[in-house]
């Protein structure tokens, strides 16, 4: 495929140009979050093992509120692993073991006393493949609030409407909320999943390649959405699309072979990385 080949051979200056062209300044980007608040997520020396196999190793980083943080890196380098560690989704996998410290809001995630349900309500997640439940649109969105014990119809309706609006899908589905969520298109489903995650009113939103199954237009909408959401939420996004990372994020982390290679402001990562590996990767010379 010629397009991919061209992408791969893109030079450093191409990327730089792309970054300057596409980066749309948001109000927040003027005032770096790092200077105005303490970190929401803090990991220090965090490692995760799948049995004897290393998932991620010795990650130390801080993620600040009301910003978008992108994780990039080659396939199998532990991006998803790290993301899923934050809301402990790896618990489902047998023989998983962790070391080091990972905190959300100053609370140790892997502490025995951590209330998993509270944690996951604080830290919402959007998956690579849209995964709406085989229920109606309304029931999908109301799922989280109902778990929190909200039973009143009006209140639920209010939350559903707010979440759908926040996820920029309200206009497309408002006519028939009873319709099955599976009858929506892939892009709509993904925005629905974002709305579903927003309905629990989380502080952090984890997104694992949310646009990889979508076409450019749907991708564009979700990127716009991320731009809007970053004023209220802390967003961590994993992506293979370097342009996307450059467009939406404020800070970026480069992972390789389970290790955090570099973590800095996005402009710096893309235009002037400190590490050779990072430079090779973002300019497409990796591997």
């Amino acid at each position, binding site marked *: 495929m010629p397009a991919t080949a061209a992408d791969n051979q893109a030079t450093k200056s191409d990327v730089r140009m792309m970054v300057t062209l596409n980066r749309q300044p948001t109000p927040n980007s003027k005032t770096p979050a790092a200077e105005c608040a303490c970190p929401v997520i803090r990991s220090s020396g965090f490692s995760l093992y799948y049995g004897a196999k290393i998932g991620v190793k010795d990650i130390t980083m801080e993620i600040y509120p009301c910003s978008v943080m992108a994780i990039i890196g080659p396939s199998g380098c532990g991006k998803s692993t790290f993301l899923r560690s934050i809301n402990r*989704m790896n618990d*489902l996998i047998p023989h998983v073991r962790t070391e080091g410290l990972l905190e959300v809001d100053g609370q140790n995630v892997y502490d025995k006393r951590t209330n998993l349900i509270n*944690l996951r309500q604080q830290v919402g997640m959007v*998956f690579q493949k849209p*995964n709406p439940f085989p229920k109606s649109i309304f029931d999908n969105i109301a*799922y989280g609030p109902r778990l929190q014990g909200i039973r009143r119809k009006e209140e639920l309706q209010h939350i559903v409407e707010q979440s759908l609006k926040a996820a920029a899908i309200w206009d497309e589905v408002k006519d028939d909320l009873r*319709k099955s969520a*599976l009858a929506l298109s892939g892009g709509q489903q993904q925005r629905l999943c974002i709305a579903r995650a927003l309905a629990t009113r989380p502080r952090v939103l984890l997104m694992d390649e949310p646009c990889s199954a979508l076409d450019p237009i749907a991708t564009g909408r979700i990127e716009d959405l991320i731009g809007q959401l970053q004023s209220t939420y802390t967003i961590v996004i994993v992506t293979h699309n370097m342009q996307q990372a450059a467009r939406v994020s404020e800070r970026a982390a480069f992972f390789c072979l389970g290790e955090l290679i570099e973590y800095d402001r996005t402009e710096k990562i893309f235009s002037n990385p400190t590490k050779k590996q990072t430079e090779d990767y973002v300019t497409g010379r990796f591997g």
Partner: protein
Amino acid sequence: MNLGVRRTLDRLFTGLTGASIVLLMLVLMAVLGPMIYRGSGAVLFDGTVEFRRMQRDLFNRADRDALSAEIAETDEARQVVYEMIDRFKKGIDIAAMSSQAREINREYGGELRYRDATAEEYTESREVARTIRDKLEEAFGSQDIELIRKNIAEVLAHKDEPRFKGTVAERFFPLATDFLDAAEHIDLSHYHDYLVALDEVEVLLFGSAERPGLLGPRPNQVARPLAMTSYGATRWDQAQALLDRLVWAEKWVEKEPGRPLVKERSPRAAMFHGTALEPLFTYVPEHIDEMLRPRFTVYWQFFIDDNFDSHYFGGVGPEIIGTLLITVVGMLFVVPLGVISAAYLVECASEGPVMRILRMSINTLAGVPSIVFGLFGLAFFVLFLFPKLGFEPKACILAASLTLAVLTLPVMIRASEEAIRTVPRSYKEGSLALGASRFRTFVTVTFPAALPGILTGVILSLSRIAGETAPILFTGAVAMGPVPKSIFDPTRTLSYGSYDMAVGDRLAMMVPHNQYGMVLTLIVLILILNAVAIVLRSRVFKKLKGH
């Protein structure tokens, strides 16, 4: 390969597929066709007036006035038959006639004692009566027509004697004339054969204590204890068969020595050639319609009626109720248990030697013969568990349902396990990521998504529970008995009833329509239950797919 060859091959395969489908249908028809045909005979048939009488008497179900009128009309047509038989009997039934003569003599003696007569008169009258009796008995027992004529003439000579006027002894004389009349028309050397042949005819027409006849018992005959012999042919096909046997006598004869016997049919009328009974064999076939009044009947009450005389009459109502009860109670155990076990196996259990053994046990259990489950149910539920729980240790619906539940549990577990396992992981992860507990996730997301597969398990176990016989043999099924009042009573079921009719007694062979009717009812019941489950499943499936 060139295009022409490929196209020919394509057509060949299509043709083969079509042919095999047609073949399959034909086989199915060949298997089910006769059963459906015979089974439907339990509900759709030509019912005779005897059927309607039976329905009135046993099930209190009739248009009484119309039926009485109809019975009166048929009785009129039957009267001719009764008279013919009686006429013929008068010359033939020696034992009856002799006892009648003796009876008259005895009664006459009794009457004499209350008359004011002298001792001589008394002794003489007694003497004359005794002579008449002896002469009659001699005539009855004789095969010599001359002697008969002489004896009867001597008896009739006493006819006008005043001592017999107005007494019971007057009955001697019609007895004598009737006998002479009959004796003139028959070959006396064969009267014993007549006796046997007449008995056969009477059984065919009026039935006996064991078998029903064409017309049923005669109006003033003593009531028979069994319902089945108290009525004539209730169905037109049955009437036709009996009529055939009435008109044609069957005999096994040895045509050639050493060869198997051959069945030979000969007209029964020939046996009674020249006698008063000969016209019977033309009268009955010609007037059978008037005597029985066949009419097309839809006996839908077959599905609600109880039965009489081991399913000779009536339907399968209690059997249907019993089958449904056992099925419902069984499903109440097997579905929750199966789903919970499957959920445990998929969601909670960690793989290991214990799990492997457990899985192997479940698979092995699915292959154990059902009679073993029956004995297990008897030993474990009835004899061991029930006394421990304070129940009476007897076979009952609960025990049968529990046994069937154990029998079908492996099927249910495996189907549910498969269904739960194939629920996409992303559903589960989505729910967990929203802060749902694992239990909550199972109940609200995994279970509904697995429901179609679980319903498949339900369909599979439903059919087995409703149709199995061996497991309930010792644990809750009976061939006869009242409708159960609670789940602690034993019950009749369609499956066990079919089995019992097949092996039980000769009676079932006389009513194959009821036997096939019961089997067909079982099949249809299972089909209906399955259809309900299938419709339910497709509804759930559609809902899940979002159409």
